[in-house]
Structure formats: structure tokens, C-alpha cells
């Protein structure tokens, strides 16, 4: 059984507001998942429900193939929104409280503080910590039970570049040990740098779930340059491979409709007497793919509304 988490038709309504609308997706063991979505798309509410702090309106979820219980929570490490600790307690005392709740041995406290590079501040009060340190302490707390799944919600929110890099290093290090990670974020390049899979949420709906590469479902596009741009465009338009051809200054961008590799295209163009000065095959980066997804979704809704 390699499915760590299955979510089935989960919904949450706050009065008339639908925060999460019929979300279903599953998380496989050992992968790093990005939970992507703009602010207010229902990321935190979804995590809240599967972590038992928000009561779902309807729907179910299964951790490790079993119906939810607090025992499954003890195999999970999670931080939601921001680090929540007792400000008057020291780092060690805070972790002791967490360790008793998770029934983890106290001997792991120093080890985990070492992992997040906070051992030298262990006796300082939480209230004296900087935001970056608080965030790292939260990760240490989440790791206390050596979790099979680590859930992080916006872990780099509000941190300075150094702090961000440090957190990312820690996440990568944890991922390398085979821990499944679910990382909620609205920072696309963060997800692109760390995650292998993404779940995209928009307005409470999940609009994509799969690997980062397959996200757009598109084949990519060519960037081409030749001595005579006009001739090049005519030639491309005559070919059956492209759905959109646009001119950008002295280059041409041709979006693929069916798969075609660069050598084949080059060969065909040479045969027709066009010699390229520039040939690159590209795929949209995550940011463009994400914006496309959200745009398509919005277009669909507007179209539907118009029909009604």
C-alpha cells in the first residue's frame, strides 16, 4: 500500500462561502507534493480538515489506508499557517510538550534541534526567537515523531532570503530521507525547486493533480529565427503541427499541436530552403503553466455563466 493519503470529495462551507468544493486527490509515498493555489484557494482549510482541526461539511479522507484517527496523526508532522508555541517556554520545554503529546522520546529533542540548527538557542524563550527561528523550531517539532508524512503550510512566508534558503535546504534534506512531504505554497518557484508533484487548487476546487512535468498537458513551443521571417511564418503555417504561430520582434514562436522534435523540424525547413539562425524547443515554466490553468478554469466558468 503506497498511498499515504486519499481525499474523497471533501467540502467545507463557512456559511454561504464555499472554501473547499468537492476536492479529491491522493498522495503517494516518498514524493514531495506541492499544494499550489492563490491566497484564499482553500489550501489551509483542506489541510485543517485532514489534520482534524476543521470539521468538514462533507467528504472523507484516509490516512495510510485507514479511516482517520488520532493514531494516524502521530505518524504525521504538520505545521499550519504559522509556528504556534507557548511564548513563555524555552525551545526545549516547548518541544518537551510536543514530545509528550506525540509520545516521542525526549532524547530526540536535541537531535531535531541540531537538524534545524537551533541547538545553541535551546534554552532561550520562544518569544525571543526571530521568525526564521520560530519556523525552524516548528519544523523540529514536526519531526519529533520521525513522521512518515511532513505537512508544511507556507514555511517560507515572511522570511528573508537567507531564511528561505535555510528552510529549503532543510526540506530537501528531509525529502532525501524518503519522507513524504506536502508543501502548501503560493510561491511557484518554491514548489518548482522542491516538489516532484503538484496539486493545484483554485477557488476551492482541485484543478490538477500529477507530476510537475505533465502539469500543462502541452507539448511545448519552438522559438525560431531565420533571415526572412515572413517566409518562415508562411512555411510554418503550411505545416500541420502547430496550433498558434506568433511573431515576436525578429523571432517566431510556434506552439505545438502534435509532438515534433527539433531535428525533424529543422530537416523539413532545410528541405524547403529555409535555414534557421535560431532554434529552441521550450516548455512553459511552472508559473506560466499555473497561470494558464487558472485562466482556463476562469474562462470555463465565464463561458458557463454566459450560457446560463
Amino acid at each position: 500500500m503506497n498511498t499515504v493519503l486519499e481525499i474523497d470529495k471533501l467540502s467545507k462551507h463557512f456559511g454561504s462561502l464555499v472554501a473547499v468544493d468537492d476536492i479529491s486527490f491522493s498522495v503517494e509515498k516518498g514524493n514531495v507534493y506541492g499544494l499550489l493555489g492563490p491566497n484564499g484557494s482553500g489550501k489551509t482549510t483542506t489541510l485543517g480538515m485532514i489534520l482534524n482541526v476543521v470539521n468538514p461539511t462533507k467528504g472523507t479522507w484516509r490516512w495510510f489506508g485507514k479511516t482517520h484517527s488520532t493514531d494516524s496523526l502521530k505518524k504525521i508532522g504538520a505545521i499550519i499557517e504559522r509556528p504556534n508555541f507557548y511564548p513563555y517556554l524555552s525551545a526545549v520545554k516547548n518541544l518537551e510538550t510536543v514530545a509528550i503529546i506525540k509520545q516521542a522520546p525526549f532524547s530526540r529533542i536535541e537531535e531535531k534541534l541540531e537538524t534545524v540548527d537551533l541547538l545553541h538557542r535551546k534554552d532561550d524563550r520562544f518569544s525571543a526567537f526571530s521568525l526564521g527561528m520560530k519556523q525552524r523550531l516548528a519544523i523540529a517539532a514536526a519531526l519529533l515523531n520521525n513522521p512518515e508524512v511532513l505537512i508544511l503550510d507556507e514555511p517560507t512566508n515572511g522570511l528573508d532570503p537567507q531564511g528561505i534558503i535555510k528552510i529549503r535546504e532543510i526540506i530537501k534534506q528531509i525529502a532525501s530521507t524518503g519522507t513524504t512531504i506536502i508543501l502548501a505554497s503560493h510561491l511557484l518557484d518554491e514548489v518548482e525547486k522542491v516538489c516532484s508533484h503538484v496539486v493545484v487548487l483554485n477557488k476551492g476546487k482541485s484543478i490538477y493533480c500529477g507530476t510537475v512535468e505533465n502539469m500543462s498537458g502541452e507539448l511545448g513551443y519552438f522559438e525560431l529565427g531565420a533571415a526572412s521571417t515572413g517566409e518562415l511564418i508562411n512555411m510554418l503555417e503550411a505545416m500541420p503541427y502547430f496550433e498558434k504561430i506568433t511573431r515576436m520582434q525578429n523571432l517566431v514562436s510556434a506552439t505545438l499541436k502534435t509532438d515534433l522534435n527539433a531535428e525533424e523540424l529543422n530537416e523539413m525547413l532545410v528541405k524547403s530552403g529555409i535555414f534557421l539562425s535560431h532554434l529552441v524547443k521550450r516548455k512553459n515554466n511552472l508559473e506560466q503553466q499555473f497561470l494558464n490553468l487558472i485562466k482556463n478554469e476562469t474562462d470555463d466558468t465565464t463561458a458557463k455563466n454566459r450560457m446560463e
Partner: protein
Amino acid sequence: MIRLLKIEWNKTYNYRTARIFIILYFVLLVSMGYLVTIINPSIDNLSINLAQFGAYVFPYVWQNITFFADFGSIFLGIIIITSITNEYTYRTIKQNLIDGLTKKEFLLSKLLVSLIFAILSTLIVFFACLILGLHYTKNPDSIFTGAEFILGYFLKLSAFFSFCTLFAVWIRKSGFAFMCVFLWRLCEIIILSIEKFNSDSSSSFFLSNLLPANAATKLLPFPNIKPQNLLTGEPVFSLGYFPCEYCIVVVAYIAIFIILSYRLLKKRDL
């Protein structure tokens, strides 16, 4: 159980303000047994030596000491309210639940602390009464007559603490929660006064005595003092009536407060 206590100990005892309050309360409660013997309130420049009046003689000592010891419970009420509202302010309740504590365990850990406070206070007051009584009573024959007021004290504390727990869980802000507890008490007094004012003087039962705070107050009645008996040489104090029927009412309220707290906790999103 031990695990829940350990969690609460870690949270509360390492909190300096709470620790000072708790220590202060118990020191005061213990020393009360001694302090009451040296404090002589004066009325119209006439110093009153309560010991001479027989305030600490069996069986009156049980009623008198429990009545006064009850005023200290406000200290512990503050601690219980803040220990719960802090969890909301710091949002640690959310983290606790995510870390694998159930809502039931969370409430239970808070109630356990209340129970321990109530048991410790009751034990201290019990021994204070016993020692004072043995010291001042010349011929102690029936020591434990009137000791049922100790049960009343324990129940009143438990009711007050569970009442505080409910308001803390409900309101989630320490200042407001405390104000509401206080206002509630005031309202019950007013309602009782209105009922008394509007009823004929012969009746001894008032419906508003069934309200939670009024019912709890019935368990620790004001000491019966008859100063005029000083002249005749009869005992100044007399033993009040311990209302067993109100015990049942108060126990029912404790159960209701706990169930309501749990339902609130269960229903709310964090």
C-alpha cells in the same frame, strides 16, 4: 492520565505568572489556619476575638473556615481561565490537536488540573479545620459533626472551576471570560433578590436558588452568629443546615458545564 498531567504541568508550571499565583494561593490557604487566630476584626472600636467567641470550636469550625476559605477560589479561577484562553491566544490548541491530542484529551487535561486544585484545597482546609478544632475545643467528643461542609467546599470549588472552564472555552478571551463569570454571579444575586422581594416573608424556598451560582452558594452558608448570646453565655455560633438536596443540583450543574464545554470544543473549527 499521567500523560495529560505531564502536558499540563509542562505548560502551566513553567509559566512564571501561573506558578507564582498557584504558590501564593496555597501558601495563603495553609497560613490561613494560623492567620485567623491572630486577626481580630474590630467593630465600633470593640475588638472581637473570634477564638473567644468559639468560632473555631467543633462543630462550628467546619462551617466557618470553609466559608472563608472559599474566597480564595477566585485565584484559581483566574489561573484556570487564563490557562485555557492562552491556548486560544497562542493558537497552541490548534497545534496540540494537529500533534495528535484529541479534543477530549485536551478538555480532560484542563479538568484534571481543576480537580487537583480542588482536592488539594479541600485537604488543606480539612486539616486546618481539624487542627483548629482540636486546639480550641475543650472536650472534643463528636469531631466530625458538621464535617459535611468540607464536601460542600469541594463541590463548590468544582462547580466554580467547571463554570470557569466553560466560559473560557466559550469566550476564548481571558478578560471577557472573567468579566462574564463575574456578571453572571451578579445577575443571579439580583434575580434572587427580586424573587425574595416579591414573595411573602414566610417562604423559605426560592426558585432562583436553583441557578448554578446560587445553588453552589447554598452549600457554604454564611456562619450563624448571634452576638446577643454573649450576654447570656450561650454559644455565639450555631451550626447551619447543610443542604444535601443542593449537592445533587450542583453535581448536575458540574456535569452540564463539562458536557457543554466539550460540545463547544467539538463543534468549533480552530
